[in-house]
């Protein structure tokens, strides 16, 4: 079983997602990057793009972000997005 970590996706107006995930991929300014549990501390700026997260159990969700920041520290990941739009699963 893959280990999990906490992810929160926040915008200035509201908190969009809060919960455990196995994996998250974010659109960094230097290209997409994926994060698993126990990742080293990291801070990066985000470009416009699609964020993909995998919940425990394997269900995936995609969220459109328009830029912002991404931080990982001590198995907590935080996305500070400017605006987000949850994509309908295909």
């Amino acid at each position, binding site marked *: 079983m893959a280990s999990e970590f906490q992810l*929160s996706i*926040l*915008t*200035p*107006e*509201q*908190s969009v997602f809060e919960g455990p995930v196995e994996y998250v991929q974010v659109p*960094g*300014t*230097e290209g997409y*990057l994926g994060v698993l549990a126990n990742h*080293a*501390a*990291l*801070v*990066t*700026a985000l470009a416009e793009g699609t964020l993909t997260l995998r919940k425990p159990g394997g269900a995936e969700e995609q969220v459109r972000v328009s830029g*912002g*920041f991404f*931080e990982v*520290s*001590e198995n907590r990941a*935080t996305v*500070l997005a*400017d605006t987000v739009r949850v994509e309908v699963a295909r």
Partner: protein
Amino acid sequence: MSSLRVLRRRIRSVQNTQQITKAMEMVAAAKLRRAQTRALAARPYAAKITEMLDHLAGAASEIDHPLFKAREVKNTALVLVTSDRGLCGAYNANLVRAAEHRLRKAVAGNGKGPGSIRLVLVGKKGRDYFRRRKYPVLAVYTPVPAEASLEFAKQLTQELIGRFVSGEVDRVELMFTRFISALRRRVVTETFLPVGAERAEGHPSPAGAIFEPDAESIFAELLPRYATAKLFASLADALASEHSARMIAMGSARKNAGELMDLLVLRRNRLRQAAITKELLDIVGGAEALK
């Protein structure tokens, strides 16, 4: 002694007042719930971006960003967030009083003219008060969006940053009402620009964090967003405070009207009773005389 007719008219008027205040109280309660949700929803982001800013300030070797640099303060802008509408108790009066106090203190403090602090007024009530008294006003924003709007916060932040960067003002303070609970709120003053002014020397970042592309450029991206988030959270707080103040003001107005009603109804009944008794006595007296 007031006549019965005058008394009846008075009762009707008080009754109307009671109905209106009751309706306003309920409307304010409903709006408060929405505004409160919005104000609270804004807090996680604001808290996190503050934490990130602290981390970065500690990590970036050389911070040379115009928004972060404190200058010698010659001109200050005081942003005062009031409401567009009245009937909300002492809500606006408290803000105006605090702002006037701040202005007076500045004049007494440095001996310079009152021009060294200028006002940026958000909301009609603040505008009306300070314009009438000929205070130096830099800008006015009204009407304020009825729901805390990120767009509005962005625009206001941009214009304030513009004034700060151009050197028109060396410091921007933000005065608004912090929402604590439906029953408690407080007028607070915070330094808005330069951004670092209220932050301590920056806490150490998570050990050996990786920055991409690098701490300085993330920092430059972060600063304007931090300012916007802070202003947005303040506006959301101010709106929630306004509705809670109005709810409480209208609630006590309704209660007062109720008490007055009780008193007036009692007086009316007594007067009516007295009139009836008098009439009866007349009839009985008249009948008695005919015997």
